[in-house]
């Protein structure tokens, strides 16, 4: 366990040293909140509810977007893909530390730093601008939220790693990865709640694993999804998680084989 903690701690140091990518990620998230907070404030002029959200719920969603992006969507798979493409992965595969474990520690470090920063940003914004926030009325909500959040993290992790395996077969995986990430951001509700879009989009994204990443957990927190819908959502998350575990395993095995066959 000690060596994973070392990897984690080392990764945190690297995070702060490579402040460039850290700052970039934060800057991006912050400008997204600013833009959308302003937008929704303008939209909510003279009304109390829209699309089934109260003011406080909508603003909590916007700020929550920032936090959940930091927690769910952050990982170091870009680095992983780079390591595969440049062959650096070989040196890791040879060490007495499980590569997956190493990646997990590295991702955890990324999430930790982004999360802390995100919570600070959001708290500051809420305080400065006196943003009305929504807190769950039932204590049980927190627990269920936590569960959906954990599943969301696992889901994104799996999806991200599956896409990362493309690097085993092609050196041109950066573009498709970018497309995947962007599509995911929109379809998971990381820019705006999916309720805005026509019903059909909502339905499709809810059945596919996309909405489960952000929209679903956030709406559980906002207590807008309860009872049978909640159960269904959890079911979708679990279903895709299981499927992706299987797919990820297979792809990684195949990928590593192809990689070693190439002479590593």
């Amino acid at each position, binding site marked *: 366990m000690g060596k994973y903690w070392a990897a984690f701690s080392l990764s945190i140091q690297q995070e702060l040293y490579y402040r460039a990518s850290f700052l*970039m990620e934060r800057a991006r998230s912050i*400008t997204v909140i600013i833009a959308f907070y*302003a937008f929704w404030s303008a939209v909510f002029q003279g009304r109390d509810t829209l699309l089934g959200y109260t003011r406080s719920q909508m603003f909590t969603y916007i700020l929550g977007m920032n936090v959940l992006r930091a927690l769910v969507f952050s990982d170091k798979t870009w680095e992983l893909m780079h390591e595969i493409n440049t062959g650096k992965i070989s040196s890791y595969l040879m060490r007495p530390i499980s590569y997956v474990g190493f990646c997990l520690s590295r991702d955890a470090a990324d999430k930790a730093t982004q999360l802390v920063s995100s919570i600070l940003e959001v708290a500051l914004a809420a305080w400065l601008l006196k943003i009305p926030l929504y807190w769950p009325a039932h204590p049980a909500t927190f627990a269920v939220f936590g569960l959906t959040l954990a599943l969301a993290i696992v889901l994104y992790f799996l999806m991200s790693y599956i896409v990362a395996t493309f690097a085993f077969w092609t050196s*041109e995986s950066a573009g498709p990865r970018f*497309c995947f990430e962007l599509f995911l951001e929109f379809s998971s509700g990381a820019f705006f709640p999916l309720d805005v*879009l026509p019903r059909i989009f909502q339905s499709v994204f809810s059945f596919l694993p996309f909405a489960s990443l952000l929209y679903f957990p956030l709406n559980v927190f906002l207590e807008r999804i309860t009872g049978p819908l909640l159960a269904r959502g959890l079911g979708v998350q679990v279903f895709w998680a299981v499927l992706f575990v299987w797919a990820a395993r297979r792809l990684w095995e195949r990928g590593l084989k192809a990689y070693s066959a190439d002479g590593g």
Partner: protein
Amino acid sequence: MKRYWQVWKRLAVMAFLMQFTNRWSSLGWLGGKFVRLAFFILFIVSIFRHVPSVAGYSLEAVALFFLTFNLVDIIAQILIRGIYMVGRDIREGDMDFYLIQPVNALFRVCSNLVDFLDFLMLIPVVGLILWVFPRILAGYSGEALLMNGLLYVLLCANGLVIAFSIHVLVAALTLRTQQMEETIWMYRDLVNLGRFPVDIYTPFLQVILTFVFPIAVMVSYPSKALLGLLSPQKIVLAFALSAALLAVALESWKRALKHYSSVSS
């Protein structure tokens, strides 16, 4: 000058050739950009099914703001994308070659990375703008049409000058300190604040976006002018700002070059 046009064309072709050797990756990038554009348009159209106006603007107006933002941003990228790599150019010694060759080094730096995909992205953006124009301009007198239309084009060009100046300033700082590159990427995020009409932002933020990082002037003013919402003072401000910014930027670049001691050896 004809020579510069020839060199620019050649650089664009070479950049395209490089993209072509990685065409699957390039398709991915294009796909991502397209997804982003499509979703935002979908968002804007969908929102207006639930509300009649946003910050007092109609669907067409908000669409115009968004599309103009894209127009100015994309054209700016076509012309100056190379500046994003100025740090690398310096580190790897390419800057030295630019400086000893008889082509303006700044021009060379800007033109090194012409992205063919940007040209492709322009197609839907321009197409949609042309679709929106008649809907906005319906009911304008011939004179107002001409005036506002002209202002629109001029202010878009003005926005390009501002974008150029900001990039040159950051490039000059990078040249001096070899450390400022992150700021140019943060510019990309700041510009994104111009996706929606700047009226949605608090007055304080609007001031910042007009005088400190003139994003508002860059991407919102052209649309406002077309909608007839821009006062003459603001128009003068827009041009004065860009002229001042350009002068400062070019001077900074000149000075940074003088103090440049080529790093790699």
